């Protein structure tokens, strides 16, 4: 290798750290015998692939309301989640791009006593934005904020199995659970469980002083939130950006236009209908990640006619999932099989047979249930998920071919979760998905769960659920989860239509690594993980 070639390689590695300017690099490239265009191309490619320090990114979020606040009891949508949980705060653990759990504010964690006791060791010397050092006491008060009778936290039910939390010295926190849970660290990665400073024994969320990569500078609820880099952030080199601004753009068309005209550098939840036009723009890239989120149509198995398993089976065969994936989600969804566990999740096993649209089978099960014809009401609103009303229109047409008359009722979007979900015999619902099979099953399928949306109480399923949770032998666990997935598929009351993809779009000037599948916006942590690539 010539001397200039050698220099060029060193320079390439320096670009990543932002130490070589474009102009200097092109000079080196010319010396090494490259053309200006070629060395420029190398510079751009390397620069994009390597994290760069500095810059200001404007991120368009699909949500945002004037009632938003930095209170972690809430965080109802992607605006608050990405800006206040992801960018401003940290939990004990986080999920990485491969979907694996890893320590975040904790340095390590381990379990004992058949996964009933969990010990989290904190990183040393981490400080809040106000300069105070993070102690085990802060962790305990932050967690207690979501527990107890008078909490207003939406995450209360996640900690229901926790019987005790205590600090063991300044850097160790011990959780004691009622029953073993091998996946407890995953629960700690939930976006509500951010660590806040403890003031007089109470979690102080209102000051906004957290541990995250960014410090809140200006927040106008329902409009925007501006954050600047935390110079004392505990992860080396991160964050890359100097400043981020989250902008609430709830109207789809407005969001698409804002990205097209360069008003923002990123938008969450891109419009699938006009994605084709966006792709034509050379400055824009589409990001698509298959997540854990799924759309369901829960049937209340305690009410007629859904108390009959054959009727449930007939319904499952009367729906054209592929058509829904193609038309409602324009192909940006993966057909599901009445199993809420996403393919990317550990212990996933696809039940057999694959449920698809088959009028013969639907009629067969209907006959088995002693019926020729069936008339059912389906309550939907786009509040359940965008496209629910259209999906119901498609189901109405396919079910009609099986002798099932589906009467679609469009419910009010307001208060949908309050008045329709868990109340009407058959409705539409959405789950953003959980990182583990146990978590998902415990919340939406366990007999005693208040969100058991189909009111399904299968004894075998519930027995397996408790056993599998505390089982540490991976092979046995896999077998148990496999059986449970088959049970929800065969007997369960939830029709799982499709798994959604997170489709977002960004300007090419934003760079990023692999994207986490657990939540939207790179696991809500895009502000911490992304950078502005030069050029």
């Amino acid at each position: 290798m010539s001397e200039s070639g050698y220099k060029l390689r060193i320079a390439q590695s320096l670009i990543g750290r932002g130490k070589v300017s474009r102009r200097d690099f092109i000079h080196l490239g010319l010396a090494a015998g490259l053309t200006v265009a070629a060395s420029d191309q190398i510079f751009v490619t390397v620069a994009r692939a390597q994290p760069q320090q500095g810059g200001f990114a404007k991120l368009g979020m699909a949500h945002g309301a004037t009632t938003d606040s930095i209170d972690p009891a809430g965080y109802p949508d992607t605006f608050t989640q990405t800006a206040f949980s992801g960018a401003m705060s940290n939990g004990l653990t986080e999920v990485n791009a491969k979907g694996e759990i890893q320590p975040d504010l904790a340095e390590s964690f381990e379990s004992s006593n058949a996964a009933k006791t969990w010990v989290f060791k904190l990183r040393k010397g981490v400080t809040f934005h106000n300069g105070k050092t993070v102690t085990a006491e802060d962790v305990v008060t932050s967690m207690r904020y979501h527990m107890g009778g008078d909490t207003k936290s939406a995450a209360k039910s996640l900690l229901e199995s926790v019987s005790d939390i205590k600090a063991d010295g300044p850097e160790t926190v011990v959780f004691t659970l009622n029953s073993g849970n091998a996946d407890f660290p995953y629960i700690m990665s939930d976006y509500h469980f951010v660590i806040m400073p403890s003031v007089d024994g109470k979690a102080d969320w209102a000051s906004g002083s957290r541990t995250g990569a960014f410090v809140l500078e200006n927040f106008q609820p329902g409009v925007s939130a501006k954050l600047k880099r935390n110079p004392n952030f505990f992860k080396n080199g991160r964050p890359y950006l100097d400043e981020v601004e989250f902008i609430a753009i709830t109207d789809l068309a407005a969001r698409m236009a804002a990205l097209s005209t360069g008003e923002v550098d990123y938008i969450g939840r891109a419009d699938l209908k006009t994605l084709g036009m966006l792709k034509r723009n050379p400055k824009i890239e589409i990001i698509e990640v298959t997540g854990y989120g799924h759309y369901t149509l829960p049937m209340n198995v305690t009410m007629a006619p859904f108390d009959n398993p054959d009727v449930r089976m007939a319904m499952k065969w009367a729906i054209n999932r592929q058509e829904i994936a193609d038309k409602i989600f324009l192909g940006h969804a993966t057909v599901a099989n009445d199993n809420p566990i996403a393919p990317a999740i550990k212990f996933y096993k696809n039940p057999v047979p694959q449920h698809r649209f088959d009028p013969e089978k639907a009629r067969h099960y209907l006959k088995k249930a002693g019926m020729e014809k069936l008339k059912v009401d389906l309550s939907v609103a786009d509040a359940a998920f965008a496209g629910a009303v259209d999906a119901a229109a498609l189901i109405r047409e396919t079910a009609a071919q099986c002798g099932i008359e589906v009467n679609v009722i469009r419910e009010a979007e307001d208060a949908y979760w309050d008045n329709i979900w868990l109340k009407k015999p058959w409705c539409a619902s959405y789950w953003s998905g959980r990182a583990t099979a146990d978590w998902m099953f415990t919340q939406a399928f366990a007999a005693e769960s208040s969100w058991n949306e189909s009111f399904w109480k299968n004894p075998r399923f519930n027995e397996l659920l408790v056993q599998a949770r505390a089982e540490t032998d991976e092979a046995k666990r896999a077998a148990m989860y496999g059986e449970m997935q088959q049970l929800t598929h065969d007997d369960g009351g939830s029709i799982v239509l499709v798994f959604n993809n997170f489709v977002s779009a960004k300007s090419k000037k934003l760079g990023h690594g692999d994207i986490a599948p657990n939540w939207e916006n790179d696991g809500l942590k895009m502000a911490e993980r992304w950078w502005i690539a030069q050029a």
Partner: protein
Amino acid sequence: MRLNSVAKTVLQRLGLGLITLFIVSIIIFSAVAMLPGDFAKATLGQSATPETVAALQHEIGLDRPPVERYFSWVGKMLKGDFGSSFASRTGYRRTVAEIIAPRLYNTIFLAVMTALIAVPLALGLGIVAALYRNSWFDRVVNTVTLTTISFPEFFIAYMLAFLIISRDTFAGTEFAQSLPAWLAISINWTLNVVPKFPTLANINDETPFWDHVWRAALPSITLTLVIVAHMMRMTRAAILNMLSSPYIDMARLKGMGPMVVVVRHALPNAWAPIVTVVAFNLAYLIVGVVIVEVVFVYPGVGQLMVDAVRSRDVPVVQACALVFAAAYILLNLIADIISIATNPRLLHPR
């Protein structure tokens, strides 16, 4: 004598206005109370449990009976306190006043900016159309303005946004490639003459004045297209009506030019209906622009109120409704005063 009776009318109307505001507050309060769900259930959404809902209801006082809540609100209101948003928590108070103030400023900013464009434009077009009635100009103006009010507002807004996007993308579309080259080039050129207005009118309290104007350009143009037709047609009709009066014939006979006749003689007497329509449209600019706010992400009061209704944030809904009602009442009052001032006969309506 005349001034006195004008003052009396104004006072009377203001009194009636206060009563109206009071009734509006009762109606809005009951309507929000009748909406399914409440703030606690709406914010907790899918993840609500009975205990968390009860705890939240207790904190914001929703566990008290509605009548009691209403009167405590009225009590505070009379002392000039708009109360706190339900989004407040212990140690983190968010007063309604501080939530509404910047939004109201934005709303008024957009309304004034639009009015400064739309009203002179409408009057000018209306006068010229009346002067050259049934000419091609009259017809074109009529048809174009009619067409713009025939489209839903959001549609006009999207079309304008599309125009801005097309500046960059038009040349690459299949449509452009299917056109003859000279046409494609000239369309592209025309598109590039259009300033690159921002499609996102997100502004905050730090936005400098001229930047605010620049960002509010597209919403303002959309609203102008929506309201010009109505005002322009009224101006035209009122002037035409006046032009058929005998005193105008007189003025014409005296040899005055048509423009002079319109501006000096017809217009002063045609003010009453024009002012009424202008006031109506200004009221619309303040009260009715929620859709344009949503499409351009402009943080105004309309969007705030829709948001607050969705989340059942009663104090904010109430305050927004009162602001809107007050704006409506005041603008109508001003319009009446101007009408009376220009045509004293209206003081004693039959």
